[in-house]
């Protein structure tokens, strides 16, 4: 175990810069072992050179986030899917 290990909670600020919703409550399904995990529960190393989030079950990389001065790279090739809780669909008022 590394002294510098964090968890997905620590990615909240950098992810919130990219997304309009809080992605730490989303469920990421690992591309390696297929295990779903709340993003806040992922094992995270970083923040520099970038945030690396690994599956708590198999340690495969699920998500990488690199923040440059004017760009951010979000690499999700280690995730099969990201399930994000959304507010209920509201009934569209008919005009």
């Amino acid at each position: 175990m590394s002294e510098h290990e964090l968890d997905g909670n620590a990615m909240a600020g950098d992810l919130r810069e990219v997304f309009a919703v809080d992605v730490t409550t989303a469920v990421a399904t690992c591309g390696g072992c297929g295990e779903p995990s709340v993003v806040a529960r992922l094992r995270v190393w970083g923040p520099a050179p970038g945030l690396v989030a690994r599956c708590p079950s198999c340690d495969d990389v699920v998500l990488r986030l690199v923040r440059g001065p004017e760009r951010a790279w979000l690499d999700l090739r280690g995730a099969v899917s990201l399930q994000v809780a959304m507010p209920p669909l509201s009934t569209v008022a008919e005009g």
Partner: protein
Amino acid sequence: MSIISPGFGGRRRSSQPDLPPGQYLTHDFPVLSAGPTPRIPLDRWQFTVTDETGAKHSWSWQEFQALPAEDVTVDIHCVTKWSKLGTTWRGVSIDTLFENIETTADYTMVHGYGGYTTNVPLEDLLDGKAWVAYQFDGEPLAPEHGGPARLVVPHLYFWKSAKWVNGIEMLQQDEPGFWEEAGYHMYGDPWREQRYQGD
């Protein structure tokens, strides 16, 4: 516009005119990692060069220790903006490892235990430009700094100096490694400040 905090950060680092652009001098040795620190027993350690035909040339720890070693003193530059001057390493030159290897490939992927990868052109590893180092500052290289052995390619940003290195794979075409896939520069020359893609 950033808020400037007077007195912040002066204790650990300083700017120096002969550093690459945007770098700051550090006196300690920050540890950056992208995953758990692998613990590799020396009797299971192996270093393998794989050429473009798939042929493998491997060394055990014992065989590796029997190769001629060099002591080098170099400056290192991390893409996270710290530089460290005059670091001393002992290790085996990549030239020594390639003495009996014939290759026409121009590119390499460097691999480490734990799954880390980084791409380096072959010419940047040869002619006295890179080493597989197993001592830092006269001591065996600590696991958090990449021990038992790490690549040292001091003329490129330090993410190219793969920790826990265990092999070099020859490639006909350049391919991105772990950080290069996620936004970092394919080559990473600190003097041209090639931090991110497109820099």
